[in-house]
């Protein structure tokens, strides 16, 4: 099985500047393991020490959020597109005196 992995701008230096990489694998997890071989260092940006997706990383298999599909063990199909999407957040943090707002 071969899928196209789309790399977001901030991670492209790890992919030699490429915006997409063709990677083999039967599941999303296997694809990420093989992506690491193509782009050393990228897996630790996506997964924690237990091998699970980091909180601030989203993966979309075609148009579906992988978390909604059941997670990293979801099977992929030939020709699928796996997109890495950062969870972007922030804000003014306007709060009265006291401990910092989180």
């Amino acid at each position, binding site marked *: 099985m071969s899928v196209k992995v*789309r790399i*977001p*701008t*901030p*991670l492209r*230096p*790890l992919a030699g500047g490429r*915006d997409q990489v063709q990677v083999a694998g039967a599941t999303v997890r296997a694809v990420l393991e093989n992506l690491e071989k193509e782009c050393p260092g990228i897996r630790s*940006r996506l997964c924690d020490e237990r091998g699970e997706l980091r*909180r*601030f990383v*989203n993966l*979309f298999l075609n*148009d579906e*959020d992988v978390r909604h599909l059941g997670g990293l063990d979801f099977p992929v199909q030939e020709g699928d597109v796996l*997109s890495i*999407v*950062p*969870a*972007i*957040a*922030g*804000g*003014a*943090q*306007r*709060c009265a005196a006291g401990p*910092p*707002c*989180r």
Partner: protein
Amino acid sequence: MLILDGNTERSMKEQAEGGYPREVCGLLLGRFEDRRQVRQVSEAHAAGNLNQDRSGDRYDMDPTDYLRIENAGRARGLEVVGVYHSHPDHPSRPSETDRQRAEEIWQAAESWSYLILEVASGRLVSLRSWVLREGAFREEEVRILPISH
């Protein structure tokens, strides 16, 4: 340095003022130049703020909007070169929340610009841009080119 034209500035101004008193957010599409030290912005695209509870001082960008905007840019040879959001009735400097969340995305996001629009009583009063360097935000120069017709 961040370079944008007057049309893009006006588009973000309208989004920020129209969204007041809620925070608005979006992505800057364009091109990196000069070894990624310069971000040349072509377009500013609004994204949804999923934070319903504290939309006055927080934003969580809708990841499906990120995907849609990035793909639209890719088709035209444009990259995501930065992120923008508004600070309603708050200065246009990054908060600790902004810093933590930017750093948590990935340290590699150092190549992005983080543009903040201060909106006071519904009017844009300042626009400043920041870059993440070794865990801290530093202000960068913003060059606004004349509006093209």
